[in-house]
């Protein structure tokens, strides 16, 4: 029990240290915009299919679930509102974050973990290059920038998924569906979802890099780091989501 508590607080300490290091090393030269762009492509462009597919089917399933229930009280015209608000305020950000945690957080953990066990991170230090500056800073900021952009697209695709099911399958009126989708939406609903996405992006990349950076042992250590990166990032996203929702709404 004592050891578990020690490990927990040690993890918090490592996270805080890495957080501080990222902030501290971000403004220092040389700025590697090429690597930032490269990471944005890896996290953003290459994740686009999986994130959008998730949003499309989430919107579609929500339509299937809510349309029937709302029809019981003759309120099916509100299906569009519910789907749009759910996607924009909550679902698009959380689901995209979970997908990115699985796809990119794990990749960062594995990549940095392999670099650690093959002494490539030591080699960076020897070559007068701070590993946090060279490896972690571009990954963290790339994910922080890209995740809100993915969420913007997820919002559109998720709402369209709901539209498809409601209009094509359930026979809802397309004009009133679209009208209702945006009738109750405010700008704050959209911005809060994007703020959440940026915070999630920062946390996912930071945890993924931290787990990889602190890898010990050989192939088994890399495997453990990868698993821990996904689990810790996903749980952190869900916990932070609660507090952000409390603060933002």
């Amino acid at each position, binding site marked *: 029990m004592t050891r578990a508590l020690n490990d927990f607080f040690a993890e918090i300490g490592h996270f805080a240290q890495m957080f501080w290091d990222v902030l501290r090393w971000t403004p220092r030269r*040389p700025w590697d915009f090429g690597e930032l762009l490269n990471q944005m492509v890896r996290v953003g462009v290459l994740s686009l299919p999986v994130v959008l597919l998730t949003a499309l089917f989430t919107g579609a399933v929500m339509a299937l679930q809510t349309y029937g229930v709302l029809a019981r009280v003759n309120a099916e015209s509100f299906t569009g509102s519910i789907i749009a608000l759910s996607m924009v305020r909550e679902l698009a950000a959380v689901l995209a974050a979970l997908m990115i945690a699985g796809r990119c957080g794990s990749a960062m953990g594995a990549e940095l973990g392999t670099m650690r066990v*093959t002494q490539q991170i030591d080699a960076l230090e*020897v*070559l*007068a290059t701070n590993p946090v500056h060279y490896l972690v800073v571009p990954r963290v900021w790339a994910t922080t920038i890209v995740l809100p952009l993915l969420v913007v697209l997820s919002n559109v695709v998720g709402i369209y998924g709901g539209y498809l099911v409601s209009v094509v399958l359930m026979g809802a009126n397309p004009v009133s569906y679209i009208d209702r989708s945006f009738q109750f939406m405010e700008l704050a609903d959209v911005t809060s979802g994007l703020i959440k996405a940026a915070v999630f992006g920062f946390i996912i990349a930071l945890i993924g890099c931290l787990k990889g950076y602190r890898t010990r042992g050989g192939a088994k250590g890399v495997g453990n780091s990868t698993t821990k990166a996904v689990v810790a990032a996903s749980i952190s996203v869900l916990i932070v989501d609660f507090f952000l929702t409390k603060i933002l709404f």
Partner: protein
Amino acid sequence: MGPMVGEESVQEGAAPEATWAGAGRARIELRDVHKSFGPKHVLRGLDLTVRDGDSLVILGGSGTGKSVLVQHLIGLMRPDRGSVLVDGEDLAALSSAELTTLRQRFGMSFQEGALFDSLTVFDNVGFLLERLGTMTRAEIRDRVFECLELVRLEGTAQRLPSELSGGMRRRVGFARAIAHKPEILLFDEPNTGLDPVTSAVIDELIIRMREKLHSTTVTITHDLRSAFTIATRLVLLHQGQIAAEGTPEEMQASEDGRVQQFLSGEAHGPLTDDEEAEREARRE
């Protein structure tokens, strides 16, 4: 970046053959360094001074902490107790940014090369030159090809590390270590796995770095032929401390049983007796 080797970093008149005796200033000092990994006490109050122009070779059996010692010299590991000073600066007192700057004086070749596997050989060798931003692209290109030629790896510039053999990777690591002409070079088993000819080329390079560029070198090797070729001074690491130290001639003439056992490669003797006694003590 610190002064390039061969410019003003070396004392005037410090001929290589004279430097081993301690004529140069202390570049690296280890004072009472202790390091443990769990119950294993690897370094036990180790004292060592590396002087300007030294070509120091660290000998010792497997698992005696030679690599751990070298990693302390450049601040990759921090001692549990004691201090490591580079040019009089205590590494423990430096910030990470200061330590990063100080490391520009060093070059290190790792046991397995430690090449960046996502970069080509060219980008690996020119990595620090690119980062420093003090050379033009053409200058970097020339320097990288010069280093690759020195380690007999012309024509590999555009290959990835995964396309090279273990020995080739080690040589690329060597080229990367010398590319920025560092003042202090650390070599972790530079000859392991190399054919005799390439091994001799690497030895020659280390000697040339010292004689022409006045680099200070610290080398870990199990290859005694290589050790006696490149060293101006040898130390034998045993049970976390320096068991013996001297010039190649002094070591060969040493009557210390531990030195004699190591040099002759005997299976039984003081070194193995000490290890056996330690194992017994741990069991008890």
